[in-house]
């Protein structure tokens, strides 16, 4: 399991190759990348703030939960913080499993939880103004489908 929170940019192709290279039995690999998008009026950059010790704890917890719920051979989470320009990769998730359903569902689960339960905050700095990204009700709602009774 690879979990990295870093300031530096990363190469998604290289990361995926390394991840794939270490697999022994998986028949399915799913990956997702989050990219800095533009905003109306033009984006200058985004600033991602995080809460270092808690970030590690929260991501570890989310990943452990994914491993309990799905038959995964391996998973990977890379998330950046600091200053990023439009088009740069913010984060990447990869899951590997025998079958694609496990890989797809686990990747979605990881994304849903990383979005609302990992302590990151994004600020969009445009040419005219800067504003903190507001969490959406739909993101919180996305978590409810994973709730077990």
């Amino acid at each position, binding site marked *: 399991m690879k979990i990295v929170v870093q300031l530096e940019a990363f190469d998604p192709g290289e990361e995926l190759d390394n991840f794939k290279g270490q697999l022994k039995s998986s028949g399915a690999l799913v990956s997702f990348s989050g990219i800095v998008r533009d905003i109306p009026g033009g984006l200058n950059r985004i600033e991602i703030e995080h*809460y270092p010790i808690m970030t590690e704890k929260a991501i570890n917890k989310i990943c452990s939960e994914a491993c309990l719920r799905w038959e995964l051979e391996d998973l990977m989470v890379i*998330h950046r913080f600091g200053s990023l320009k439009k088009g740069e990769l913010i984060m990447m998730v990869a899951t590997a499993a025998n079958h694609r359903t496990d890989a797809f569902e686990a990747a979605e689960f990881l994304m849903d939880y990383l979005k609302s339960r990992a302590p*990151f905050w994004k600020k969009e700095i445009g040419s005219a103004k800067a504003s903190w990204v507001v969490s959406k009700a739909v993101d919180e709602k996305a978590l409810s489908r994973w709730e077990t009774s």
Partner: protein
Amino acid sequence: MIVQVLYFSWVREKVGLSKETIDTEAKTVSDLIMELCIKDECYKLAFSNLDVIRVALDQELADQNSSMEAVKEVAFFPPMTGG
């Protein structure tokens, strides 16, 4: 009880600090928020809408009713926007 209080995102900007050490008698997170709001206007501004305030106690998500017993680090922040 001495606790480290951390602020992130716009909570940090409104409070004007990223971190401070506080001597508090607060039993719950709510008590601590009330203590802070009495201390200075900037906290009143930061905590004016408690619906958008999240809290972590010793780096674990908690809620405003959570007990402060044996807590060393409290963090206040808005809903997270990772991914």
